[in-house]
């Protein structure tokens, strides 16, 4: 019985984490490069909508299977475009990143909602991505169902954790990103184009947030509605702080949050009698608690987070 319960919580919680994981990893790159992108939510909205659109239009035709792949591609592209826009505003125009992020969030949410109204018209479902049990692996007792019986995006997202780690710590680009967010002047003096690196990071981060959004509409809810993202972008941003800017930490945060979410739903479903509001609060409380109880980690964040880079302008 408890075995089953634990199994259920884990096997559901793992796929719940994917949207947050993707968006958080993207945001991690942004912040590592020194840009605080509070507009993640807006990018996710656009990704969720534009990812949904091809799947919706190709729903019945012979191209239906490609609709979803196309959807993810379009969502990523939309994310890149939004990232570019944000880069233009915060990197080239050096605007205050906090407000610009709120602006981007409003814009993304609004544009997605407006276009949805015009081109689709009402809450509608799509086929969505079916689960692909990995041959062999999915039959491992207990773990198989938790880790290897999901839709392909789950595997992709989890593979992105080591990939992000490699990208950040083992490639020239990652080195530049880390330098650009910590000591942009040093990077600049060594001939690294700090602003270009930030542009690239924002494009990558945007693409990942877009994918995260599309995961919500194509894999998790398998539908689109105006309010689909419902604040998950803000949580993704917060989880980057939780994960202290490391891919593994971000994964930990995303898993903690979504497992807690899965746990609280299971608690409710199990019929334990107490006001459900407290169950709903659980994931949020847990994230704060874990961070409060964790010893202060040594790794400090990108120290120039939020500071626009300008070679000539000082202090």
């Amino acid at each position: 019985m408890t075995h089953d319960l634990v199994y259920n919580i884990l096997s559901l919680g793992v796929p719940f984490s994917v949207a947050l994981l993707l968006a958080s990893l993207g945001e991690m790159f942004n912040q590592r490069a020194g840009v605080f992108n509070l507009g993640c939510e807006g990018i996710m909205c656009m990704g969720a909508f534009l990812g949904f659109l091809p799947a919706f239009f190709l729903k019945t035709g012979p191209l239906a299977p490609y609709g979803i792949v196309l959807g993810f591609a379009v969502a990523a592209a939309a994310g890149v475009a939004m990232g570019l826009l944000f880069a233009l505003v915060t990197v080239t125009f050096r605007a205050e990143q906090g407000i610009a992020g709120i602006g981007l969030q409003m814009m993304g949410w609004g544009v997605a909602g407006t276009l949805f109204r015009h081109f689709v018209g009402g809450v509608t479902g799509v086929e969505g991505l079916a689960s692909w049990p990995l041959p062999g692996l999915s039959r491992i007792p207990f773990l198989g169902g938790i880790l290897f019986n999901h839709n392909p995006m789950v595997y992709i997202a989890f593979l992105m954790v080591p990939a992000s780690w490699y990208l950040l710590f083992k490639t020239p680009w990652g080195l530049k990103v880390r330098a650009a967010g910590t000591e942009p002047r040093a990077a600049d003096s060594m001939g690294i184009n700090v602003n270009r690196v930030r542009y690239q990071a924002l494009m990558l981060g945007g693409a990942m947030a877009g994918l995260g959004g599309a995961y919500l509409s194509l894999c998790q809810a398998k539908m689109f509605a105006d309010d689909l993202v419902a604040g998950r972008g803000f949580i993704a941003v917060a989880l980057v702080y939780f994960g202290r800017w490391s891919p593994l930490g971000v994964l930990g945060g995303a898993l903690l949050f979504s497992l807690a979410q899965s746990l609280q739903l299971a608690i409710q479903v199990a019929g334990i009698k107490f006001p459900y509001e407290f169950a709903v609060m659980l994931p949020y409380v847990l994230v704060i608690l874990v961070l409060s109880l964790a010893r202060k980690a040594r790794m400090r964040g990108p120290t120039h987070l939020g500071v626009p880079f300008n070679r000539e302008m000082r202090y």
Partner: protein
Amino acid sequence: MAKAQPIHELQLTGITKRFPGILACNNVSMRVARGEVLALVGENGAGKSTLMNILAGLYQPDAGTIAINGEEVRFHTPNDAYARGIGMVHQNFMLVPNMTVTENVALGLKQHHRFMNLDLKATRARIVEVSEHHELPVNPDAYVWQLSVGEQQRVELIKTLCFGAQLLILDEPTSALTPQETDDLIDRLKRMTAELSIIFISHKLQEVKELSHRVAILRHGAVVFNGRTEDHTPAELAALMTGREVHLPRNEGLLVEGPAILEARDLKVRGDRGHFALDGLNLEVHAGEILGLAGVSGNGQRELAEALTGLRPVESGTVRFLHKDMTNKSPAAMIAAGLGYIPEDRHHEGIVPRFTVKENLVLKDFPTPRFSWSVVLKLGEIARNAESLKASFDIRCSSTSAAGGSLSGGNIQKVILARELAREPKALISVYPTRGVDMGAQEFIHSQLLARRRAGGGILLISEELEEIMNLSDRIAVIYKGRILKVLTSLEATREKLGLLMAGVAE
């Protein structure tokens, strides 16, 4: 990056650069030949760094040209400058603290950047090669934040050499080094001239004299002198720089044994990395004396200053101030009791950069009745205070409403000095008060410290400049590994004795 062609001759012609409201470089022309060391000197804000940043490709000049071996070049980015063999060690270290030495160097070594793969092994090998060739020992795997200032300086040098520099620009490389490190560096640089040319910026004319072949002096962005070093004494150079004679004052007073006002007994204090930075330290500062604290930095100076001012917790032992036990009292309590402090990091500890000069001048005293009625600030009094201090301490700023951070380093130091001395502290702890400050300002700061001494204040002067310590102190204590090794009177102290003590050799 292919190895750059040798630079036989570098010629700057008519370089002009302006910043909003300031002409930083005004029609500057100069020339460096192969194997030559050119010293560039001038007061704070004269435009030295700006000129060199132009040469390093960071800034674009508004007018003027750079020519290498007679061929005109244009540097749009630092990459272009590196490609032509120009490397610069900047005034403020350009290192990423949370990366290793190898990673820091790899950042600029583009030839080791492969697609999706960073060849750190190759970079590491290159570092080892350069460090052996130039005898600059370094641990390539250490994180930069773990290194001392001297080691970081070495990393900067190695980094620049790894990139294949033919012309090395060094912007105040010695301002944060210990005397030993400085001597070391100068020696190495001398040897390097066999292979490369050097432009060397410093406020210490002794070094200029020792190292350089030629000197160029900048004043208000323009070259006012350009000649051979050997033809001029440091005093002459100082006069050329400031336009007047500079005399660093000396402590000529008699050794008066006043009462001890600031005492540390068996002090044990932990440093940032958790070890005991102070390990049973004993020290007394008397009224009316300057006690110099000599020592190689990193031996507990910073921790001592912070423990005495209440900024760092004391594990055991006592701090007594004015005969009261003040161990582990808050900084506010120490300030209220009359302790003054000139901290090491003037930009972030000494002032609030975004506050105006007048606000910075009352940073410690704003709650006192002089500057507030109960909780309401007396803005008029604060402004008057600022004007009078500005005049008496010769603080150069456009107005006392300018942001503190916009002042030059020397002037920031004057603001701090003015604030601390105007409080007429019973005791003053002064840490590296003249680091990176030009001769004129040094003279002023020294004379102010002496004036405070005459007025009966006790001063703890922490410095690595033996010159400064010997000029100003009544007694000199030498700190080594968190303990006072020995205290000498100024009459006993000689350069040699102090040097041995600082190295830990106690007779």
